[in-house]
């Protein structure tokens, strides 16, 4: 089976829950287990939160783009922002590293995405924006 969707929403923190709900509803078509669905929700939440907090530095009038595809039981998710970009991606991906300790962030965002999805890649251009791409094979996926 093949399917795709794309949504754009404002960089409001209240849209983190909205993005999770949309991702979960779309992913449901692949016949995922409850655990797989929970992993997808969490990974999407991390990516969207990063776009809002780091990409857009909490400005609420910007746009986050989420694109998802399903191809033969493989779910791909892209979360994109046109924000400030990441200067050092390797550093940003390190467990417990956070560029904003004052916000009491755990520094586990990318580690969670890595642990809960099968593949994670990050493309970023400093000053221009970031795209996070994640993939998960659904065990009994269609």
């Amino acid at each position, binding site marked *: 089976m093949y399917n795709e969707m794309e949504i754009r929403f404002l960089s409001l923190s209240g849209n*983190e*829950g909205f993005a999770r709900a949309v991702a979960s509803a779309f992913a449901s078509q692949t016949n995922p287990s409850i655990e797989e669905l929970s992993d997808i929700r969490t990974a999407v939440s*991390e990516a969207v*939160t990063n776009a809002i907090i780091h990409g857009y530095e909490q400005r609420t009038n910007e746009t986050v783009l989420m694109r998802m595809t399903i191809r033969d039981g493989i779910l791909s998710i892209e979360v994109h922002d046109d924000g400030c970009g990441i200067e050092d991606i390797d550093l940003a991906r390190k467990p417990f590293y956070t560029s904003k300790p004052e916000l*009491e962030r*755990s520094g*586990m*965002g990318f*580690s*969670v995405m890595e642990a809960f999805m099968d593949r994670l890649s990050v493309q970023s251009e400093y000053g221009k924006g970031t795209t996070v791409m994640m993939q998960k094979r659904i065990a009994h996926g269609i």
Partner: protein
Amino acid sequence: MELNAQKRGSRLFVQLSGELDHHSAEQTRIMLDTMLRDISVRELILDLSGMSFMDSAGLGVILGRFRKLSMRGGKLIVKGMNASVDRIFRMSGIYAIVERQ
């Protein structure tokens, strides 16, 4: 996010229910810290059985309160984790520092 608290001696029992993400983190942090201003609190017991979602922002809230209590010689205990909360707790290694009941 909904929070119900009860204090018994030096122990503060807090039941958290709902979703703990970046959006609800700040409000949750403020509510917990307001209660922790009472310096007689030595133990914070977080009952998470009503939590339907938690991501790394939630870990940040819990770790922050853990630090606060550690500094005054107190401790933080978590209980009632459902499968998805338990999964992010295990993956983050938080059980190595926060006590579970």
